[in-house]
């Protein structure tokens, strides 16, 4: 769970998730509002970045850390702001357990439950088309933070994009490593809180330049 300045909500999110998943790792990415302490109170293991690096870097740190536990079989990336549902994560892990898959990627657009605004929808769809063109995969949602990996999947992913471009990078890594993947319909809860922190659309420009510039 990448964590950056979510002190208001993270404790509740962690407590709720722990009812289903016993081991929660929060990677505090240099929060200044006591998020790390709140996550600890919620029962998470907190790994603290000494400086702010970005969400992609936090995800990679969390995966690297969790892979150290030889008993860990499945790895889920989950947003710390409460926009993902634990039920969806559990369903994804169950699919990894029962089906021959390495990765299950959450998608908002497989059914009509999630209601993003029109502009957000257009930008997300453009990102999907771009991602499918460059990776050769067939996905319906490119920038969903809810993903589940088995050990093979988690070990094959190497996130070098520190900032927001990591979502596209993960897709590209899945394609490169020829992992077996599937999509799972998930419901993203756009609360007023998550809307107020939502991604600026300007970020699509930053994402494209991060992906192309070496």
């Amino acid at each position, binding site marked *: 769970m990448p964590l950056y300045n979510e002190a208001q909500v993270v404790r509740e999110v962690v407590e709720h998730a722990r009812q289903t998943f016993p*081991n929660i790792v929060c990677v505090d990415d240099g929060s200044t509002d006591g998020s790390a302490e709140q996550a600890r109170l919620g029962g998470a293991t907190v790994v603290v970045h*000494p400086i702010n690096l970005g969400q992609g870097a936090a995800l990679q740190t969390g995966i690297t850390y969790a892979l150290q536990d030889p008993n860990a079989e499945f790895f889920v990336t989950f947003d710390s702001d409460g926009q993902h549902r634990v039920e969806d994560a559990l369903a994804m892990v169950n699919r990894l357990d029962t089906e021959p898959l390495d990765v299950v990627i959450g998608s908002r657009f497989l059914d009509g439950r999630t209601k993003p605004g029109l502009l957000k929808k257009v930008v997300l769809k453009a990102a999907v088309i771009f991602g499918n063109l460059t990776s050769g995969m067939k996905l319906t949602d490119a920038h969903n933070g809810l993903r589940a990996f088995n050990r093979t999947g988690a070990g094959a992913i190497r996130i070098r994009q520190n900032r927001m471009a990591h979502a596209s990078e993960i897709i590209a890594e899945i394609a490169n490593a020829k992992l077996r993947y599937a999509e799972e319909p998930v419901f993203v809860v756009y609360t007023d809180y998550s809307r107020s922190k939502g991604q600026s659309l300007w970020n699509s420009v930053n994402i494209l330049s991060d992906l192309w*510039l070496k």
Partner: protein
Amino acid sequence: MDNQFFIKAVLIAVFLIIGLFLVIPTRGARQLAVRRLTTLLLVLVAIFAVAFPDLINSLANLIGVGRGTDLLLYGLIVVFIGSSVTASRRYRQQEAQITDLARAVAIAQANHPAEKSDETP
């Protein structure tokens, strides 16, 4: 203008190469070597320009640029953009190194995950 064709072609080609350099990964050794060779070349050109200003002028006229000063200005722009590009590339490489370092520190400071069941009730 027909006589400006040459300088236009050269400048556009140089900018295209710089643009290409932005998106193509290169090896560290070659990048460093190219940067040092460019610096050396710049020093030689600068000495040449100071010693023989008339030659710079006639070179400018030859390739369709009005004055030697203008040619120097064009050169300065090319060098400036090139140096901005290499600086931003070096910044990106350094950022990747800092990320690896910060991740190693973060993981070293956290308890090993296999032991954490002992510390949390």
